């Protein structure tokens, strides 16, 4: 087009080409400079943006505001629809809430039927620890309460928080408590929340291991361990401690009771316990008088009692027979 013009444009064409070439070279040079010495160019860019963009701010603010208003307007438009959706969702939630309330009531009824709670009948006698046997083979303490105070063999002993042990051996003024950590101690426990039954068997270590767990995968470190009440020795639901995984990959229990400071112990009275007449029958279910039809009696008994009871009782009996013997010899 420059060609069609008259006058000085005729010599402009090669000059133009030269100018364009120089400009392109300069621009590519700038790009290379940026690539090689990026910080310097970026500093220049930053200062340029610093100079330009804030001065545009006062224009930007109203435009941004206007677009915000536009967006708000659109969302107002959708308000009706949104409201409807929320109402539908709320109705659904009401149904859920109703279901939850019903389940809660049902749960309360079932709990009531099962009498799942720590029995309020329990009263306790508090004793002071007089002495504890420091021997590494016997983990037991002596309390200053005894037969005079109505203490009987087999009762559970707690400190303020968790289970400490079991009365094993009662004198007139003293009672011996065999601790959970003792090698002779076998306590039937339940691991919550999975509900796995296990035996807490003392091994003279501060963390007694859990044994005979049905499904080890269900038990996780941190689970609560409470007494299960199997065997009829201990009331169910007494806090024992928390599960931990020890370095030898065994599940052990950190006891909730403070074993460093066993000072005042509560001995729980459980009146349902049968009187103990001789050491061998400390734990076993009460012997019925011999009847002609023994099979029917045992059947009836099995129906009345939870199935795990006899099993737990046997283990308990196996563990505590020696302890009782020990206690007797002491007393």
């Amino acid at each position, binding site marked *: 087009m420059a060609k*069609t013009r008259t006058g000085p444009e005729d010599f402009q064409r090669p000059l133009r080409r030269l100018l364009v070439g120089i*400009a*392109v070279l300069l621009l590519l040079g700038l*790009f*290379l400079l940026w690539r090689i010495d990026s910080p310097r160019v970026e500093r*220049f860019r930053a200062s340029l943006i610093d100079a*330009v963009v804030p001065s*545009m701010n006062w224009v*930007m603010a109203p435009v*941004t505001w206007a677009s915000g208003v536009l967006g708000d307007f659109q969302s107002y438009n959708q308000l009706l629809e949104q409201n409807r959706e929320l109402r539908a969702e709320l109705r659904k939630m009401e149904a859920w809430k109703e279901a939850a309330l019903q389940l809660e009531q049902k749960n309360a009824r079932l709990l009531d039927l099962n009498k799942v709670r720590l029995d309020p009948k329990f009263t306790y006698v508090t004793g002071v620890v007089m002495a504890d046997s420091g021997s590494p083979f016997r983990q037991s303490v002596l309390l200053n309460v005894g037969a005079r105070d109505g203490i009987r063999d087999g009762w559970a002993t707690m400190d303020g928080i968790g289970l400490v042990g079991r009365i094993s051996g009662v004198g007139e003024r003293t009672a011996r408590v065999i601790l959970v950590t003792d090698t002779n101690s076998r306590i039937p426990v339940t691991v919550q929340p999975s509900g796995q039954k296990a035996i807490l068997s003392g091994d003279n270590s501060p963390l007694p291991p859990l044994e005979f767990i049905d499904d080890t995968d269900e038990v996780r470190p941190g689970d609560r361990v409470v007494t299960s009440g199997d065997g009829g020795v201990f009331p169910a639901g007494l806090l024992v401690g928390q599960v931990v995984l020890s370095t030898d990959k065994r599940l052990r229990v950190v006891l909730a009771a403070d074993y460093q400071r066993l000072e005042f112990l509560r001995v729980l009275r459980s009146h349902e316990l049968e009187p103990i007449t001789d050491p061998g029958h400390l734990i076993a279910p009460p012997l019925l008088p011999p009847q002609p039809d023994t099979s029917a009696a045992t059947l009836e008994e099995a129906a009345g009692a939870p199935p795990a009871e006899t099993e737990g009782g046997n283990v308990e009996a196996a563990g505590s027979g020696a302890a009782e013997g020990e206690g007797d010899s002491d007393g």
Partner: protein
Amino acid sequence: MADFWRQTHWLFRALFLVLAMLLLFTRLLPLSHAPGTLPGPDVLICLILAWIVRRPDFLPMPLIALVILIEDLVLLRPPGLWTAIVVVATEFLRSRIILTRELNFLVEWMLVSGVMLAMMLAYRLGLGLAFVPQPPFGFAIVQMLWSIALYPLVVGLSRLIFDLRKPATGEIDNFGRRL
């Protein structure tokens, strides 16, 4: 001197500058753009190519270089490379103005699309040669397709609003010179 300023191309150059700044301004607006959304068209490139095909005297090379360089710097692109590519592309179209003047719009559109594609490829090639990390190829393709789709709109609006069109044969400017 007064005659010099009466020429229409000064008016259009100022207009181009204003439009370019407006476009840059809209791209700087802090309207939340979530990352990952596909890019829109590059309106400025459409504008430049549409105008350069119609009236190359409205867009002198230094003006284009200045505008694109500012855009490079403000939009945090690698400075210079895209500017150089735009300058080369506009010079390519400018030198073929006698040819493009004869073309109907469809062919012109195809020509411009080809130029845009070549620009995009050259840009990515340049970035690749310099080992500059670049956005995914799909994004660049989507932006280019958007630009191509927008090109007729830009041409139409320029025609409607600014009465920008290819000079007819024998048309003369205010000073009686042939365009």
